[in-house]
C-alpha cells in the first residue's frame, strides 16, 4: 500500500483543472488552519468544529468531477465539502461564528451547513444520516429524468450503521445515480477502525449489493477525481451507484484544533507517517515538477487565499448575531 501511495500523480488532465484542484485544497487547508486558531487560543469560534485537515484531496477530487447542479450531502466534518463544492467562504465563516449572515443563519453551526445554490442541501451530525437522503435525491433525479447525480459523503463510522447497507441495497436495486464516497480516515471518534468493523475493507460491501466498489488512495487528488468521474459517468448513463472508499487520515483529533496525541488514542509515528503523505504537498511537488505551476504562482495563490480567508473572518466578526425574534423563525417555510 505504501509504495502505491507514493506513486507520482498521473497528469493527463487539463492544466487549469489541476491548478484548480491545487487551489481548492489549499483553500480548505488555510481556511481550516485559521478556524483552528480561532477556536484556540482565540475562543472566537465555539461551535464544535470537526476539522478537515489532511483529507482535502477527497472533497476536492470528488467535487471537481461534479457539475454545479449535482448534489452533495455532508456530515459533521463538513467544511471541506462546502468549500470544494464552491461555497462562499464568508458565509461559512459567519456560520462558524453562529452569526445571522452564516450559511445556515446561525442556526446550524459547524455541523449543519447548507448552500442550496451550489448543490449542497445540507449536512447532518447524525452518523450515516445523509446516506439515505442522498439516495432519495438520486431517486428524484431518476424520476425527473434529470441528468444529475447525488453524492453521499460519509466517514468509516457510517459503515457501522444499518442504514448504510440499506441505502446501498436500495440504490443498487433501483440503479440510482448516486455515488457513495466513504472517507475512511481509520478512526471513529476515539476508536480505530479495527475495533469497530469485523472487515475494515469497506469498499467490499458493494459486492454484496451487486454494485462496483473500489478502494483508492484518498490522498491522491487526481485518483479521487478520476475514480469519481467514472462513477459519475456511470450514474448519468443509468448504470447505477458506485461505492468509493478513500483511504485518508485526519491530522487533528476528532473534534477541535488539538492533535489529541496526549490522549493516547493514536501514535505520533502514525500521525507523522500520514503528515508525510500530505495530499497538498504531494500535488504541489508534482505540479512543480511538470511545470504546471511555478513557485511564484504558488506564493501568489496562497497570498490570495489568505486574504480571502481574512476577509471571511472580518465579515464574520462584523456580522450581527441572530435576533431573539429569529428563534421561532424558520421552523416551517
Amino acid at each position, binding site marked *: 500500500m505504501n509504495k502505491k501511495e507514493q506513486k507520482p500523480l498521473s497528469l493527463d488532465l487539463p492544466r487549469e483543472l489541476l491548478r484548480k484542484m491545487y487551489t481548492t485544497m489549499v483553500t480548505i487547508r488555510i481556511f481550516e488552519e485559521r478556524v483552528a486558531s480561532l477556536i484556540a487560543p482565540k475562543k472566537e469560534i465555539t461551535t464544535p468544529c470537526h476539522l478537515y485537515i489532511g483529507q482535502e484531496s477527497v472533497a476536492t477530487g470528488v467535487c471537481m468531477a461534479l457539475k454545479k447542479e449535482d448534489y452533495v450531502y455532508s456530515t459533521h466534518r463538513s467544511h471541506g465539502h462546502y468549500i470544494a463544492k464552491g461555497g462562499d467562504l464568508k458565509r461559512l465563516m459567519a456560520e462558524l461564528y453562529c452569526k445571522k449572515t452564516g450559511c445556515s443563519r446561525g442556526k446550524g453551526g459547524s455541523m449543519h451547513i447548507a448552500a442550496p445554490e451550489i448543490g449542497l442541501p445540507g449536512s447532518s451530525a447524525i452518523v450515516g444520516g445523509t446516506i439515505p437522503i442522498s439516495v432519495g435525491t438520486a431517486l428524484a433525479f431518476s424520476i425527473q429524468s434529470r441528468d444529475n447525480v447525488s453524492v453521499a459523503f460519509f466517514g468509516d*463510522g457510517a459503515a457501522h450503521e444499518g442504514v448504510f447497507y440499506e441505502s446501498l441495497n436500495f440504490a443498487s436495486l433501483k440503479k440510482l445515480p448516486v455515488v457513495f464516497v466513504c472517507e475512511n480516515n481509520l478512526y471513529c*471518534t476515539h476508536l480505530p477502525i479495527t475495533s469497530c468493523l469485523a472487515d475494515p475493507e469497506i469498499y467490499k460491501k458493494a459486492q454484496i449489493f451487486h454494485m462496483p466498489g473500489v478502494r483508492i488512495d484518498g490522498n491522491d487528488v487526481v485518483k479521487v477525481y478520476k475514480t469519481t468521474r467514472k462513477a459519475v459517468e456511470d450514474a448519468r448513463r443509468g448504470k447505477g451507484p458506485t461505492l468509493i472508499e478513500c483511504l485518508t487520515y485526519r491530522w487533528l483529533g476528532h473534534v477541535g484544533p488539538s492533535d489529541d496525541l496526549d490522549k493516547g488514542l493514536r501514535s505520533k509515528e502514525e500521525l507523522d507517517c500520514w503528515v508525510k503523505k500530505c495530499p497538498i504537498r504531494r500535488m504541489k511537488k508534482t505540479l512543480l515538477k511538470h511545470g504546471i505551476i511555478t513557485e511564484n504562482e504558488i506564493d501568489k495563490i496562497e497570498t490570495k487565499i489568505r486574504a480571502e480567508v481574512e476577509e471571511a473572518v472580518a465579515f464574520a466578526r462584523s456580522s450581527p448575531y441572530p435576533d431573539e425574534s429569529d428563534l421561532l423563525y424558520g421552523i416551517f417555510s
Partner: protein
Amino acid sequence: MRTISFAKAINEALHQIIATDKQAFLIGQGITSPWYVGTTTVGLIGRFGPKRVIDTPTSENCITGVALGAALAGMHPIICFPRMDFMYLAMDQLANHMANWCYMFGGQLNVPMVVWAIINRGGEQAAQHSQALQAVFSHIPGVKVVMPSTPYDAKGLLIASVQDGNPVVYIDDRWLYEKEGHVPEEHYSVPIGKGVVRREGKDITVVATSYLVHEALKAADNLSNVGIDVEIVDLLSVKPLDEKLLFKSVEKTNRLVVVDGGWIHFGLAAEIAARVSETCLFKLLKAPVMRVALPNAPAPASSALEKVYYPNAGSIVSAVKKSLEKRN
C-alpha cells in the same frame, strides 16, 4: 459527610453495580473514550475488562437489541447513549421491542435493562446534539423514566434502575456533572417513583426535574427576597410520577408552575398540569397552571439564541410572579 461530583457519583454507582451484580454489564458507544461521557466511566474498562464494559460501533439500533437480548437471557445490561439524540436511531428496539416485550407475552418475561441517556447541550451544538427527550420516552408504556438532580440521587437511582427488573430510562444532564453533593460510600438505592420536596414554601409550588431543580432553587432564593415563599418539588422519577407528593404540595400552595427541560408543547409539563387538573385539585387552584419549558423550536446553534432558548432561574421567577398576579 463525603462530598463528590455528580459525574463521580455515576462513576461510583457503575463501579459498585458491576462489582456486586454478576449479571450487570455496561455497553454503548464511547464508554471507553476519554471525553465522550465525561468522567463517568473512568476506571471501568481497566477494572472489569472488555467483557463487562463494551465499547461499540456506531450501531445504536443493533446495540439496543443486543442489550435487550442479553436481558432476556438473565443479564442486567446498562446501555449508554452518550447523547439522547442518538436514541432516535434505536427507536425500533427501544419502543417496539424493549418496551412491549413484557406485556406482549402476557407479563411472563421481564426485561431488566437500563437505558442510560445523557442530555448534552449548549455550546452551540445545535439541533441534533441538544435534545432532552424525556417526554418521548415517558409516552411509551412499559418504560420507566428517572431524572436525578443531585449526586446522591444520581448514584441511588442508577442502582435502583438496575435492581428494578424492568426497562428504565435513566436520564442525566451534562450540565449537572460538576455539581457537588453528599454521597454515601456504600451501595444504596433511591426508590423509583418517589419525589422529594427540595424546599418547603407556602405560596406556590414549583415542580422541576434534573438541572432545572437547581435553577428553581436559585429562583426561590431570589423570590424570597421579595417575600414570595416557593415550595420546590423535585420529581426524580418522571414515570411513575409521584402524584401523592405533587398533589399534597399543590393542595397546600394552590398554585403551580411546572418546569421542564424538554419542549413545552405535548410534554412533561403538560402531563403534570393535566394530572392536577383532572383531580378535584383544580378547584383549589388560585391561578392557572403555568409552564416553563423550551420554546417550540429545535435547538439553535448560536449562543445568542441559546441564551433565550434554555429556561433558567430568571424564567422561573417570571412565571412565579405571573402566577401570583393571576387569579382563577
